[in-house]
């Protein structure tokens, strides 16, 4: 594999691995937990690095994941005191752990394979230099590590799909049926932690959050099914990775930064253009509703004054603007629409209901 392809592969693995547990974070309304975890793993990484001397060693990954889970435990502990809210509890815990990591780096590890820049942004561009051979394949360590983590996430979510779904949708029933929602919660948080540790090396602790949240948040707007949401999240994450890599090589900038930006761009595009949930679709839908309601109002108005002494005055074009409070343009457009649908007929200024229009007016009033 050439180095460019290797970098893109790692980026795609990181994005896919992040999107899977990220989907459940978004659905559980604990998106910020990814922020807490991705920062809290730092002291674990630093201490593990001191002890083992190699950041990609499985023991370091496990230790760092443990400090991510510690952050979750501390946050839940603070919440249980009922003296702080959830966001405050998260905000209190992770900066403490992160800063312990920063202090350890600056005090003991500066100049070694850890520095604050790498912590914040990762170093995807250098990933191909750090290689390892397994099964006769000489590949960057990043591919092995992220490949393994992605596989772990896929297997865990496939195995426990049903349990994750129930515990996320209805933790009460999950507990009543014996599916231990707390255990599932910590299991999920362990996946998030392990993923954050692996992704940390490549995209840094801040951008992990973007890859965990933006693709699932976009996928949420595109589907009504959990399984499809997981698949779409992964696809969008990988798209962000490819797009980010292209942009980064084009304007010669940080790959991780470009990836995170792309995931934000993808979310914005989805927010605007999603077929049902998108802002534009919503706007169009509410305009359609308003127009339909206006036609219905018109029909009801006409039917109420039909065959009365004041019919000639009431059921005339000029009257609509006064009585229904419509601008002349809106009144004209509504009359036009009602005419096109065969609900009314225009005789000069006079408006008359067709039989179909009369029936519709009756139905509207019954509602």
């Amino acid at each position: 594999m050439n180095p460019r392809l290797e970098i893109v592969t790692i980026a795609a693995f990181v994005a896919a691995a992040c999107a899977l547990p990220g989907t459940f974070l978004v659905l559980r309304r604990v998106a910020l937990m990814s922020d807490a975890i991705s920062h809290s793993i730092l002291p674990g990484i630093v201490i593990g690095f001191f002890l083992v001397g190699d950041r990609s060693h499985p023991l370091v990954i496990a230790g760092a994941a443990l400090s991510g889970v510690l952050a979750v435990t501390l946050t839940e502990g603070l919440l249980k005191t009922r003296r702080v809210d959830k966001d405050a509890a998260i905000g209190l815990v992770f900066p403490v752990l992160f800063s312990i990591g920063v202090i350890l780096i600056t005090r003991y590890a500066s100049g070694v394979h850890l520095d604050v820049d790498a912590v914040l942004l990762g170093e995807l561009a250098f990933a191909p230099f750090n290689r390892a051979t397994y099964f006769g394949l000489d590949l960057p360590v990043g591919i092995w590590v992220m490949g393994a983590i992605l596989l772990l996430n896929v297997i865990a979510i496939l195995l426990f799909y049903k349990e994750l779904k129930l515990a996320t949708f209805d933790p009460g029933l999950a507990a009543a049926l014996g599916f231990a929602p707390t255990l599932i919660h910590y299991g999920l948080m362990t996946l998030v932690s392990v993923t954050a540790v692996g992704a940390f090396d490549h995209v840094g602790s801040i951008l992990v959050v973007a890859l965990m949240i933006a693709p699932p948040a976009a996928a949420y707007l595109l589907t009504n099914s959990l399984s499809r949401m997981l698949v779409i999240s992964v696809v969008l994450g990988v798209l962000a990775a490819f797009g980010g890599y292209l942009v980064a090589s084009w304007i010669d900038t940080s790959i991780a930064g470009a990836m995170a930006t792309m995931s934000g761009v993808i979310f914005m595009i989805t927010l605007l253009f999603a077929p049902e949930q998108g802002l534009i679709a919503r706007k169009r839908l509410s305009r359609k509703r308003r127009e339909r309601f206006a036609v219905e109002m018109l029909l009801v108005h006409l039917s109420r004054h039909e065959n009365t002494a004041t019919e000639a005055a009431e059921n005339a074009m000029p009257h609509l603007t006064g009585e229904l409070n419509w601008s002349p343009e809106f009144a004209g457009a509504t009359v036009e629409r009602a005419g096109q649908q065969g609900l009314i007929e225009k005789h000069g200024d006079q408006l008359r209901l067709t039989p179909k229009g009369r029936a519709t007016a009756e139905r509207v009033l019954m509602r």
Partner: protein
Amino acid sequence: MSSGNQRQAPLPIQIEDLTVAYRAEPVLWDIDVSFHEGTLTAIVGPNGAGKSTLIKTVLGLIEPSAGQVLIYGQPYEQQRRHVAYVPQRGSVDWDFPTNALDVVKMGRYGHLGWIRRPGVKDHQLALEALRKVGMEAFARRQISQLSGGQQQRVFLARALAQDAKIYLMDEPFQGVDATTEKAIVDVLKELKSMGRTVVVVHHDLETVPEYFDHVVLLNVRIIASGPVDEVFTPENLRRTYASRLDGAATDLELASAGVVLQSQEDGDGRVPNAQPDRY
């Protein structure tokens, strides 16, 4: 409780000396009550009386400070499969990406255990449960697009799919339309005819005699419990609703309880009104 050498079958739900407290504040105090096979029981009482807490404690969702709950003579943990649960509709996020049929299938999860996925049989049972509540046409409908009453019926169908001996329902009638109310009542009747034991947290005192045969009047303590025609008396209701000292909500509830009793005595079925008729 059994006397002599006559062997007595264990009761569906037996609650003994149960006390539940939140931070040393008792929510349920020394509850002794049992529920018999094939009965439809309403749990009524003012807000904060501990009605939902009682149900959740039976389900093991809340750890009691003292006492125990036995399901057919054994702890709940060993009897999970026999107990179906309808939580309050507001307790879940209806924007979750799933459809009605999928939610009903969740009722089968307890029978499947860990890891195993629902199969064809579970699919059929879920559809059948949806049909029983008149929701089969909405099987593939995204749950956020259902009305409140339809969502409640989906929850009820999910409990039916659990195929249990005991059904615990937390305010299933809360804010539902007439169609849903009728669907729930029909299901209650069917469950009773099948000999199931049903316990429902209920808010509407007026419908208690119509829908249920047993009632538990609860206000932190058990005020009274037993068959509706024996226990659902003005005196007991007054004691249930008046023993609390907190303000307006209680007064209102008491007023509506009083009116219900009046209209029962008059038998004229007029719409309950908190103000007595002056003309």
